[in-house]
């Protein structure tokens, strides 16, 4: 995208460039330099430093990596992190798609009300929302009260289960999914659906053949956003889940904050980064990440 912006500007600068003794076609690169520099300083250097720490702190060795793959804890938690992130992404997609659909297709108060609900949810701190679930699902909360009012007896165990942990994370990440889908759906020309109907397609067929494919960029965008944010979660599973729901970031945090083992923490972070890249590469192979940009 930066290239597209840079090209016309580069042409405009053509007259000045030779005067300074620079080859004409270096101007676009000069214009790209600030963005490249920012990327290098903000992303590549820190990641490079983490990579370096993982094999040099406290001594030059690959012992950290050997430990990650020999102690069952780390591979197990890593695996759990990915399955959890996948589950959360799937549930967010299932719940978010209809909401975004209604928001995009209607232009009355329903759409506005939904948008306000999603935005308020989005702006409320995630710690607050996590503690809210502790109250809602808790012993003195409304769910248990309703259950007992109807005389169903002892309520099922809701809190401190994998279910409540997933529920909490879905609640926090759902707005990301809805907004990603909404931004794409809003741009779909309603005439396309009318056209397919006029050609004899039933609503279901018209949705499947016209609408759904057009929303795929939103699906891909939202899914990747939710998936990658979810990989970094750990407070919500700690507060709502069981120790079995531990996420890898919790272990990284422990290593940094409790044990000052930055080398080992870096190694775990690198493994997480590589694993995430592999997942995205596989995804790209089948779905195509370029759809992100529509």
């Amino acid at each position, binding site marked *: 995208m930066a290239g597209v912006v840079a090209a016309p500007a580069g042409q405009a600068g053509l007259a000045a460039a030779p005067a300074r003794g620079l080859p004409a076609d270096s101007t676009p690169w000069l214009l790209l330099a600030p963005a490249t520099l920012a990327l290098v300083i903000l992303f590549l250097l820190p990641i490079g430093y983490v990579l370096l720490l993982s094999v040099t702190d406290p001594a030059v060795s690959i012992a950290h990596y050997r430990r990650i793959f020999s102690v*069952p*804890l780390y591979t197990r*938690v890593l695996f759990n992190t990915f399955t959890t992130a996948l589950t959360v992404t799937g549930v967010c997609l299932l719940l978010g798609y209809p909401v975004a659909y209604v928001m995009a297709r209607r232009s009355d108060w329903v759409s506005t009300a939904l948008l306000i609900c999603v935005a308020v949810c989005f702006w409320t701190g995630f710690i607050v929302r996590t503690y809210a679930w502790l109250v809602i699902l808790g012993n003195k909360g409304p769910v248990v009260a309703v259950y007992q009012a109807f005389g169903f007896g002892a309520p099922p165990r809701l809190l401190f289960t994998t279910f409540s942990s997933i529920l909490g994370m879905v609640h926090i990440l759902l707005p990301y999914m809805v907004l990603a889908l909404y931004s794409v759906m809003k741009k779909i020309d309603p005439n396309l659906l009318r056209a397919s109907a006029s050609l004899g397609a039933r609503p279901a067929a018209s949705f499947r053949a016209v609408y759904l494919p057009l929303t795929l960029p939103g699906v891909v965008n939202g899914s990747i956003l939710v998936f990658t944010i979810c990989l970094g979660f750990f407070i919500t599973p700690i507060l709502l889940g069981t120790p079995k729901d*531990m996420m890898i970031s919790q272990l990284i945090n422990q290593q940094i904050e409790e044990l*000052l083992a930055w080398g080992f923490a870096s190694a775990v972070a690198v493994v997480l980064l590589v694993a995430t890249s592999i997942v995205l590469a596989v995804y790209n192979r089948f779905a195509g990440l370029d759809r992100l940009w529509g």
Partner: protein
Amino acid sequence: MKSPRSRSQLSRRRMLATAAGAASALALPGGPVLGQTRTVYVNTWGGSWTAAEDTAYFKPFTQATGIQVRTVAPVSFAKLKAQVQTGQYEWDASGLGIVEYSQAVHENLLEPVDFSIIDRNAVPAANIKSHGVSSVTLSTCLVYRKDKFPNGGPQSWADFWDVKKFPGKRCLYDRSFTTLAFALLADGVPADKLYPLDLDRAFKKLDEIKPHIKVWWSQGAQSQQLIQDGEVDMIAMWNARAQELIDRGEPLEIAWNGAEIYTSFRFVPRGNPRAKLAWEYLKFISEPKQEAAFCSILPYGPNNPKSFDHIAPDVAAKLPTRPDRVKVAHQPDAEWLAPRLAGIRERFAQWLAT
């Protein structure tokens, strides 16, 4: 073209005038005093903790010495390492639990105590270590809901493990060494023989109670919420957090027997250029009067027995370091733990996750 240019000149001129005004203000009689202001940056937890420090430490210190105190929150162990590694100091004094303190000494992150300022004879020998002076003490103790156990609740870790005699939902602290020591106490190991920890024996005992632990807590606020809402009936939690709930009227009882005493130490990060000021500050707040003032606001235990002379009996009744409570409590052997903690933590996390 002309008007924007003249406008920009105007603003430049105004800016210069403002700067000159500020400079002359500095040079006026107030100036030299400003130049001499000495400030110490103290790392703190924020919230009620900082408020208590303000009353008990900061204000009296500034009054007595003229040295200003600025605070930086929250306390972060990792930040200590980052500061020493980079030589950029955000704060000059902080405090950490005895185990973290020993880890920090092990990693060579702390300035040795400046004995030209800290007086060895003014405080008990146990309150001064090579790189720090003791701060207040927090206990992790067995707390239960009185309404669940009207005929008397669990009084020891053996009782906590006895699910037949004391049925109910249980909660333990996700801090490896604390919970391992409780398991050993429950298994009949005497309090003075806990360290070095017999890990195999402790994990075997923990296996027994694991199915009865409804939840493991790691955040202080979480532990309060769990016992307050009756999610659990008994819990291993910090005395100050439990006391806060009791003062609010929650039907809780603290069983002091078998508590883990966890003393904090205050220190100066290695290489800090304002170390002298920081030690002045630490000397001042270690005095019994200041310690007593802090512990009268928040129910943390003073480490200097003389501090109790300045504390009202009804306040002392809440504190974990009252002599009769110290007798039935134990302390972690931080020097033994520091080099082994990474391994113990890993084993504990793996045990929890399976």
